[in-house]
């Protein structure tokens, strides 16, 4: 029994036992037992995934366990990457949950569902037959739905978010079901091996259909435009460690699905598939980060940022597919490696960010940036964690996302010289989209960190904030450590990820990494994040020393802020998140279509004197309004029409049954 196999076995067993323990152990120790169990389950998943990336594979068939299809498990390197990422997120979220769940989330049901969700999610990238895959996929969605609804009694918005999530995830499931069943219908069985065999001689239209339909389902799970509407609702309303699990781990399964179906089961396919993926990814990235830049809700901002990062990942996946279809395997491997590395990096920093946002929520009771501020003094460790996460997310050196976005840009710019006209048009536009995304991400995270954590408190909650318990800090610390390692030593994961990517698109290894420097192979390019960080640090220290020598030795003095001579500044005069985003909102006015209302109340004496001015601004999701609202209106209209049929009379319903039976019999006699 190798590491991959024993790790997976342990993960499933420990996860199920934790769920059982949640129902049995007394209330006092419940969160500790479940949290520890979940973390162990995640750690076993990481071990198994690393084993699989290292080349250990195994497969297992249990025909009796599930009716009709049986359970088929086969772990390969591609699945191993996603298994390891999920496991790592689970470890941090599990430990964090011990402290976080103490406040109202320690009921039997919620605690039992968490490990079940984790097990289902760990199994998705491992299973290898359509039946098993769909069961795990649906279980993952259902358990996460229950977790999203955990706090529905406290806030009414949770129920709304839950409904959106429930409907959209099931529409996604239906799409995936249809796509995969069409594929199964052309094969001898439903195991992935048989599908791979069948895909070689599929009629061309069928492969296209399968890819596009499954793409719809998987893209909705990854929060890709225009099926993203559930994500910025459900992720903020879930408990924060669940948000981290969903945002850092579950959305990755959408990417996994696209890569599995597109590259593995269907074996590459035509170029327009991947062009579609790339365009969807680029549009999602730009649109979502623009919404994040406008957002004043901390967790909603992070939710949109998830869509943005998944968009960037899909740009990489799409470029990989386009290069592979054009026969340029070097760049295909490089693009896919960039995408996979970004999945890993995003998981690390998004876990960190959601966990620290949860810590803020725990300490202040608010996630509205306009009410926060000044947390640096009361919550120094959370502030440090969020700061690290913000640096990682904004693609600046020495941050985590910088390395993967650098790889992605390298892949895109090297595609031009050998390309056809389509590629020559797509690549520069993709580079521009990635660049705009990076720029807006910087603005968003400067806003989130600068307004939320620095300056002075803007609300009562922020004034009385207190630091979170140790277990939450440990959870954040784990995610932070992972972010730092990935930022400074991407060379530790890049060879593994590169070889997986290369194998998936049958290419040579895309990058050679020694201890400090990443060097691309096949194209020119090198980067050493750790040397860059050291150079920065050394320069700062030299400067500090030089300043001590040159500058005056007098002690630092505190002084009043410049208040234009008008007396002390109050928190009301500070810039808020809304005002910070205002210039960007004006620049992108045509895209965002914000709604602003100004109500002026005049005094009774004269209409020239103003008693009060009320200003409201809302930036609604435009796609949601233009695309979803008409559909929802239509459906509810049909519902109204349908209601006329249901009057409540039992006779009528019996009559419907009778006439339907007659109609069916008539139809059968006619066509038989």
């Amino acid at each position, binding site marked *: 029994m190798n590491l991959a196999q024993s790790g997976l076995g342990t993960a499933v067993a420990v996860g199920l036992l934790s769920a059982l323990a949640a129902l049995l152990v007394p209330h006092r120790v419940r969160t500790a037992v479940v949290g520890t169990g979940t973390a162990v389950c995640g750690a076993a998943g990481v071990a198994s995934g690393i084993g699989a990336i290292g080349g250990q594979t195994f497969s297992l068939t249990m025909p009796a366990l599930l009716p009709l299809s049986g359970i088929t498990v086969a772990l390969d390197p591609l699945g191993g990457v996603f298994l390891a990422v999920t496991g790592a997120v689970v470890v941090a979220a599990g430990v964090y949950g011990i402290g976080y769940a103490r406040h109202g989330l320690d009921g039997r049901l919620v605690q039992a569902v968490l490990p079940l969700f984790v097990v289902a999610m760990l199994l998705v990238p491992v299973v290898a037959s359509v039946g098993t895959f769909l069961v795990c996929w649906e279980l993952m969605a259902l358990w996460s739905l229950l977790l999203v609804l955990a706090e529905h009694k406290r806030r009414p918005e949770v129920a709304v978010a839950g409904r959106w999530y429930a409907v959209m995830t099931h529409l996604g499931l239906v799409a995936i079901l249809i796509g995969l069943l069409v594929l199964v219908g052309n094969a001898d069985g439903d195991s992935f091996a048989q599908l791979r065999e069948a895909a070689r001689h599929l009629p061309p239209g069928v492969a296209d259909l399968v890819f596009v339909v499954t793409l719809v389902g998987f893209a909705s799970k990854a929060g890709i435009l225009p099926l993203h509407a559930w994500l910025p609702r459900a992720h903020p309303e879930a408990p924060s460690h669940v948000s981290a699990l969903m945002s850092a781990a579950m959305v990755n399964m959408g990417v996994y699905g696209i890569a599995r179906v597109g590259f593995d089961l269907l074996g590459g396919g035509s170029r327009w598939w991947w062009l579609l993926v790339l365009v969807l990814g680029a549009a999602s990235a730009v649109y979502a980060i623009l919404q994040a830049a406008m957002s004043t809700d901390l967790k909603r901002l992070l939710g949109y940022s998830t869509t943005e990062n998944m968009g960037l990942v899909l740009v990489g996946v799409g470029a990989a597919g386009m290069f592979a279809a054009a026969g340029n395997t070097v760049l295909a491997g490089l693009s896919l490696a960039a995408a996979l590395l970004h999945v890993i990096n995003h998981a690390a920093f998004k876990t960190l960010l959601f966990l620290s946002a949860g810590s803020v929520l725990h300490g202040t009771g608010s996630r509205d940036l306009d009410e926060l501020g000044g947390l640096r003094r009361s919550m120094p460790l959370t502030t440090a964690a969020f700061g690290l996460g913000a640096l990682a997310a904004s693609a600046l050196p020495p941050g985590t996302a910088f390395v993967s976005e650098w790889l992605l840009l390298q892949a895109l*710019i090297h595609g031009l010289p050998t390309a056809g006209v389509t590629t020559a048009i797509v690549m520069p536009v993709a580079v521009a989209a990635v*660049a705009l995304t990076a720029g807006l991400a910087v603005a968003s995270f400067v806003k989130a960190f*600068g307004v939320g954590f620095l*300056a002075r408190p803007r609300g009562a909650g922020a004034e009385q904030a207190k630091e979170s318990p140790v277990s939450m800090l440990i959870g954040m610390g784990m995610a932070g450590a992972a972010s730092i390692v990935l930022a400074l030593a991407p060379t530790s994961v890049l060879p593994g990820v590169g070889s997986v990517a290369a194998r998936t698109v049958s290419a040579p290894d895309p990058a050679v990494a020694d201890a400090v420097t990443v060097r691309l192979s096949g194209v*020119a390019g090198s980067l050493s994040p750790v040397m860059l960080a050291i150079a920065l640090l050394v320069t700062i220290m030299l400067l500090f020393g030089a300043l001590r020598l040159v500058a005056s030795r007098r002690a630092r003095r505190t002084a009043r*802020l*410049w208040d234009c001579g008008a007396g002390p500044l109050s928190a009301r005069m500070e810039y808020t998140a809304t005002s910070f985003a205002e210039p960007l909102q004006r620049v992108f006015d045509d895209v965002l279509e914000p709604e602003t209302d100004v109500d002026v109340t005049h005094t009774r004496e004269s209409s020239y004197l103003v008693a009060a001015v009320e200003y409201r601004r809302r930036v609604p999701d435009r796609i949601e309004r233009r695309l979803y609202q008409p559909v929802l209106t239509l459906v509810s209209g049909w519902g109204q029409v349908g209601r006329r049929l249901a009057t409540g009379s039992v006779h009528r319903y019996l009559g419907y049954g009778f006439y339907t039976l007659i109609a069916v019999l008539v139809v059968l006699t006619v066509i038989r």
Partner: protein
Amino acid sequence: MSALGVVGGVLQPLLVAAGAPLLVGVTRQVRARLEGRAGPGVGQPWRDLRKLLRKEAITPRGTSEVFRLAPLVLVATTLVVAVVVPFVTTDSALDPVADLFAVVALLALGTVAVALAGLDTGTAFGGMGASREMTIIALVEPTLLVAIFALSVRVGSTNLASIVASTLHDPARVISPVSLLAAVALIVVIVAETGRLPVDNPATHLELTMVHEAMVLEYAGPDLALVELASAMRLTVFLGLLANLFLPWGIATTATALAVLGGVLAFALKVTLLGAVLAVGEVFLAKLRLFRVPELLAGSFLLALLAVAASFFLA
């Protein structure tokens, strides 16, 4: 790491740090003369720095470590860039460590540090400056990266030394449409990034028009000296980048004393000339309204995109 790289790595940051205030002095002097004033002389920025360094350090009430560290980060990022970019010598001490993307990102990191410091003060001015600066940064990024794309196509790499070396080998490329379009796009970007007219006015202290100055309003004493030095160095670095990406002649390719001296002189000359041209331009320009700036940047983005298109279709 070659001897040439080591020489460049030591010489370039020193040259940039020492020369940057002089460059600012030159631009101010040129402006003053064109406006009919005598001007304070080229050495005035250095005298200002000396004065500021002797004053006591001030911490405005309620500010945190972010505020105190930001000037150090700003200067440090610029110095690291000065080590990486081939200004005086074609080899760089940190050659495989960072490429053009990394240089751009490092400079952005410095801006972000100052923007956070502006927000950290909790004043309306600080927030306003940070918000405006971040808007401009976000819009500049596409132009910058697409222009880099255009420059890297013919070389097949974003490595700065390779780009400079390739231009040295094939001088005719400088007047190709790709180079010219990319150069114009980059000039607009540099004007925006260094906060010069018509995007930002470095001499203003009027709240409606401030961008950079609003963020650093609370700095005093040695901290202000660092901020001032850094903004002068950023101007030098950007002008040097522009000069050497398109007109790299004079740069030292061997580690002999004569070649290095020639490299230093050529760099100083090019940057001073560009600074003087910038100053002349500023005399004839008024500041754009903040919300007209995106139009300017969109125009430069279009040029950058055309440069990439030209590199493919005209190649």
